[in-house]
């Protein structure tokens, strides 16, 4: 892509005392796409997102969002004018009613889409007069989403948006994200739900122990990762299969199972050299790829 990235960080670090929450993170998010941000709990997802929005100051490194520096206070305000954020907490002002918080938020954004806000209010079945403190977590999440997308942001960042939603709520969330992306909004969201990531994302970034361990298009992942199951007459040494692209080898009895990110041809070739009796090649799902990447690092 030739357009400048929506998010770009270089050597971004955040330490809390001796704990390094984010270390040397080089993250690039392309515009007009849906990018998923995966990682285990405590991998540094939320810390990274909060640094992008100016809520946490980086210890080292730099970053830009929509071309503006995240560590410059004036730039940070400009970033937040064009970026909407749905936080992990999904907590809103308990003392406001749904209607009041919609009015409150709309006041900060000249491009506020009242028609969309009204449509989503009906779609999500949010009671306008109810106090936020009396909303269920699912309703709060939907309200938070409404407040985010009605801003008509250039970039929409969501931290585990589907957490606490029922299946219908998740479906509505994904539909909203797809519509937003079709309207030209860049979507960047963290999630633990591999199934939803597999459905709507174009790109997958994996963070582990504060560093980026994978940044690939989902199509490329699906096209290149394979599992090769081989049965041998007499099992060869695992070391013989430590080849380029091999991510994991497991042996049980006379069976060997290899997960490879590429170079499948050579692996099959090698198997035949060792007189394999059967060679089966199967597809690998994103869940497997994710776990593999995280375990390996």
């Amino acid at each position, binding site marked *: 892509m030739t357009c400048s990235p929506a998010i770009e960080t270089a050597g971004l670090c955040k330490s809390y005392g001796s704990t390094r929450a984010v270390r040397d993170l080089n993250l690039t998010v392309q515009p007009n796409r849906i990018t998923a941000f995966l990682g285990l709990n405590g991998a540094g997802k939320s810390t990274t997102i909060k640094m992008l929005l100016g809520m946490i100051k980086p210890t080292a490194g730099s970053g830009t969002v929509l071309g503006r520096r995240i560590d410059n206070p004036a730039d940070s305000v400009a970033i937040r004018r064009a970026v*909407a954020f749905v936080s992990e907490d999904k907590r809103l002002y308990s003392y406001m009613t749904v209607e009041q918080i919609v009015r409150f938020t709309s006041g900060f954004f000249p491009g506020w889409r009242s028609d969309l806000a009204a449509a989503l209010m009906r779609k999500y079945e949010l009671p306008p007069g109810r106090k936020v403190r009396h909303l269920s977590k699912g309703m709060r999440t939907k309200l938070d989403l409404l407040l985010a997308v009605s801003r008509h942001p250039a970039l929409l960042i969501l931290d585990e948006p589907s957490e606490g939603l029922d299946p219908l709520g998740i479906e509505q969330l994904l539909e909203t994200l797809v519509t937003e992306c079709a309207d030209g909004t860049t979507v960047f969201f963290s999630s633990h739900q591999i199934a939803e990531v597999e459905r709507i994302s174009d790109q997958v970034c994996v963070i582990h122990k504060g560093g980026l361990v994978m940044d690939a298009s989902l199509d490329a992942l699906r096209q290149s990762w394979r599992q090769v199951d081989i049965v041998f007459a007499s099992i060869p040494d695992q070391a013989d299969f430590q080849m380029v692209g091999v991510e994991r080898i497991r042996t049980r009895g006379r069976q060997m199972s290899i997960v490879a990110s590429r170079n499948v041809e050579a692996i099959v070739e090698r198997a035949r050299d060792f007189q394999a009796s059967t060679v089966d090649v199967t597809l690998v799902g994103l869940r497997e790829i994710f776990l593999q990447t995280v375990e390996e690092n």
Partner: protein
Amino acid sequence: MLWYKAWLETRTRFLVAVAGITGLCSYVVYELGQDVTPRSTVDHYYSTLHSGHRLIAIMWLVAMSLLMMGGLVQEKAAGVSSFTLALPVSRARLMGVRIWAGLTQAAALAVLPWIVISAVFSVAGWPISLFQVRFYLLLLAGGGIVFAGVAVLISSLVDGQYTAPMLVLGVLLFCANAPRSLNSVNPLVFMSGRDYMARPDMLAGPIPWARLAANVGAAALFMFGSVKVVQNRDF
């Protein structure tokens, strides 16, 4: 819009305080008025004002400390700071609106009782000394603003919805029981007006502008400090 938020956030506290202070004023004017027949009207008048001032001051301090609570650090404890900080507003502006909203409400709460008392007095046909009322108000505001500053600072330093108000209460109690050597800097002593009494219950002499200015300066310093603290914090 931030003012709208500040109002919605604090209006329950504010209205409760208004109700409480108005109730207190009625008590001051009516109850205290009943049992002082031997004295002259003027004596009775000053004594009512003085006891009224003391009662109002205590109630007002508590109300104001609670009104000054809130802000980003308390919002973080409640999990809503992420929403506030994602708005396109600088932290200094967030703090500024909050402090001004608190001060405006505190000012309204300080003036209100004196309006009520004056109104009742004029209906009853009693004399009103504007000098006394103005002096009491300046004492109230001039001492109270220091506590407002302390409340803002504490609520910017301490997480937890109950820890901060308890600490402010602690500071108030400390000032109430502070050693005499600290009298010259104790805002509570300043508020009581005991240094400016011509008689046990009548204020006299020049208004202490210098000390008032010093108190305002100290409060401004506390507030400036709390803005700096919040600006440099991670949320």
